[in-house]
């Protein structure tokens, strides 16, 4: 049954056919026919008007990261489209499924430097999983089906649809399109059983095996398979920043966070283990430090769905291609039940060292101004460690990642690969729509909040229940820390002159509270969590606080600095 409708209407029906209920966007000239069609679909498609298109892209990311569904953005051509690009690049490097639909000048004006024309496909090709220009209404249903299939299958990523204005207004005989096969693209590679056997033999042989848990575990919904694998083999693990909530923080085999500001134990033990099993992670330089000294003693097994990750940074002994939900289960079946008690116990001394020299001082200070870690831990505990953590980028991000506790899957939304300041507020808005049943806590610094401050307008309009925790130190703290450590304390443009955030919150009608004293912290957090809707909690934290421990850039993972 085909029906004759406009391309814009076909887009609405195609989005509904994909199960879309929420989209984030901003109208403009070249996308007006589509927004006109959207007006008639308001009952089914909840469009969230952001205040800047970058916010729409990050909101779609936040939505996707917590829900596992595809986040959708709808913006106009030219500046509307280019404003989403940071979000597209961010989603690419962090494997987040989003579809950005941008208006475009009509086909007959393409290439003429028309008003608000930009070669969006050309610009986004290197930073998207797929980028396609819809030039006629005939293409709409197919392009949307292909976009969603590509965005969410295999290793997820962003897809850009460049929707020419003529294609929005032309008429087309519409019928929904199903698409589950692209001959050039294999999102579920066949698993090589020999590789599984070799990997299992290697793990069974190991005396000191160690697992690196990446976001691939969450993306593959393989959290249970991971737990079963670790428990059967009695193998300790460390988590990457994006993999932190793939296994509960309290699990005895979870030894904490990897990377530059991760925990001491998992970093040191990376260079002591005999078999390193990396699951759905990509050996980012923030995890490996100096590659020439990284895990040289170990045999390396790498489980990933993307073959281009094998040997990209670290040479792998046994690559295991496939969805880790399947490969982990197949490996577990071949594992011998083992106890590695001595090896697991050897993490303890590092945990104790880190606790006494770093964590205790950060989380339980008796005097002085508030610490960032102290604020994070207090918020985490007040939510019974069940909230979704959203972070901005910088010290707030590392402190939040380190001191928040995770009990549930898909609980950390952070800009890992791209390191996008300004990410937290819009991503948290998206997260409240992706999982309205969960508490969403967004930690940010005074730099990051101001980078997408306009999205407070979206929070106001939607009453999106984002619990914003501003950790204000009047500095661009992370850069300041590096300036202190590596640039002779020359604080080049890192002191931040701040506005009165209480007045800003008031102007947006968002309840807010500023905390300067330790004694007020618990009460303020209670007030924030009890508020029905958004809340801004400004904590005035120590100005020159440092995130420790630290592997200096290019340093060796087992030589972390504990003090600076």
């Amino acid at each position: 049954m085909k029906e004759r409708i406009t391309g814009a209407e076909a887009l609405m029906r195609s989005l509904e056919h994909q199960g879309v209920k929420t989209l984030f966007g901003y109208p403009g000239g070249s996308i007006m026919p589509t927004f006109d069609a959207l007006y008639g679909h308001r009952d089914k498609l909840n469009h969230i008007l952001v205040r800047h298109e970058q916010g729409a892209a990050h909101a779609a990311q936040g939505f996707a990261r917590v829900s596992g569904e595809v986040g959708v953005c709808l913006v106009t051509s030219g500046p509307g489209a280019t404003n989403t690009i940071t979000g597209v690049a961010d989603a690419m490097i962090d494997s987040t499924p989003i579809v950005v639909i941008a208006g475009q000048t009509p086909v007959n004006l393409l290439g003429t430097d028309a008003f608000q024309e930009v070669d969006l496909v050309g610009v986004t090709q290197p930073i998207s999983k797929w980028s396609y220009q819809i030039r006629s209404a005939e293409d709409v249903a197919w392009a949307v089906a292909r976009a969603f299939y590509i965005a969410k299958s295999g290793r997820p990523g962003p897809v850009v649809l460049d929707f020419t204005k003529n294609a929005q207004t032309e008429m087309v005989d519409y019928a929904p399109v199903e698409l589950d096969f692209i001959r050039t693209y294999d999102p579920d590679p066949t698993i090589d059983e020999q590789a599984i056997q070799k990997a299992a033999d290697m793990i069974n042989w190991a005396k000191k095996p160690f697992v690196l848990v990446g976001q691939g575990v969450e993306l593959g919904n393989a959290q249970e398979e991971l737990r079963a694998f670790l428990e059967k083999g009695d193998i300790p693990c460390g988590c990457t920043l994006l993999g932190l909530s793939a296994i509960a923080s309290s699990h005895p085999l979870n030894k904490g966070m990897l990377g530059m500001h991760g925990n001491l134990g998992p970093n040191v033990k990376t260079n002591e283990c005999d078999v390193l099993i990396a699951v759905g992670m990509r050996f980012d330089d923030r995890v490996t430090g100096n590659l020439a000294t990284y895990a040289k003693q170990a045999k390396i097994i790498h489980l990933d769905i993307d073959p281009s990750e094998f040997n990209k940074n670290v040479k792998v002994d046994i690559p295991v291609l496939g969805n880790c939900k399947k490969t982990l289960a197949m490996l577990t079946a071949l594992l011998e039940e083992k106890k590695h008690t001595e090896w697991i116990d050897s993490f303890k001394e590092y945990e104790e060292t880190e606790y006494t020299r770093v964590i205790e001082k950060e989380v339980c200070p008796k005097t002085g101004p508030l610490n960032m870690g102290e604020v994070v831990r207090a918020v985490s505990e007040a939510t019974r460690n069940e909230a979704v953590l959203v972070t901005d980028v910088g010290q707030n991000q590392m402190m939040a990642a380190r001191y928040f506790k995770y009990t549930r899957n898909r609980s950390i939304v952070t800009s890992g690969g791209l390191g996008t300041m300004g990410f937290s507020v819009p991503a948290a808005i998206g997260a409240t729509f992706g999982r309205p049943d969960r508490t969403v806590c967004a930690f940010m610094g005074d730099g990051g909040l101001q980078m997408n401050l306009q999205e407070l307008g979206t929070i106001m309009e939607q009453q999106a229940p984002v619990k914003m925790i501003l950790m204000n130190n009047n500095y661009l703290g992370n850069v300041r820390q590096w300036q202190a450590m590596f640039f002779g304390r020359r604080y080049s443009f890192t002191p931040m002159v701040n506005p009165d955030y209480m007045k800003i919150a008031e102007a947006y009608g968002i309840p807010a509270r500023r905390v300067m004293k330790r004694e007020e912290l618990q009460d303020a957090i209670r007030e924030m969590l009890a508020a029905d809707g958004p809340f801004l909690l400004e904590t005035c934290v120590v100005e020159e606080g440092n995130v420790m421990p630290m592997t200096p850039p290019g340093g060796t993972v087992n030589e972390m600095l504990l003090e600076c």
Partner: protein
Amino acid sequence: MNKETKNTEPTMQVLPHREDLGGSIKSLYTIIVHSENIAGLLNQVTAVFTRRQINIESLNVSASSIPGVHKYTITAWTTQDIIEKVVKQIERKIDVLQANYFTDAEIYQHEIALYKVSTPEFQGNPMASKIVRRHSARIVEVNPVFCIVEKNGMSEEITALYDELRAQNCVLQFVRSGRVAITTSCFERVSEYLDMREEQYRQQKKEDNHE
């Protein structure tokens, strides 16, 4: 697995020792890419080289023997370690079917070149026509002003003819096609891959229907 050998390194023998990435010996690689015939794909393929600042020596794109599939033959000087990563990142593009790299030993390769020479100079110099014959090149056009010489062959042969003609001072223009190459392996990877993908899909559909 044999119980007795359990505590030895079962797979170690078959694994070469893991080496550092980033070997530094450069050689000329031929990269053959098959893709769907979609606008903008050339850009995506070359962008992988650009990102790593690898200079493309030659590039040839044309329809392949498989309907709807385009074939790219690219040559570039780089290291084996880098070319492996480049090829995987090209293959990662959604509409790329396959990308592989080859050394000269693994392919039969050819180029075509055209040499425009001045007719008076050419006729006035008996060496010039000897050179053309010795190189088995053909003269495809003659008029009072210029002649066009055409030569097929390996890259070095084409360069050699150019060098010799230039020494005679008669070359007005010179152009070469860039390399086209065919693998000398007995496996037709692309057609086999396509058959395999179609078969996988049929299997998957069958399984879905049973469930």
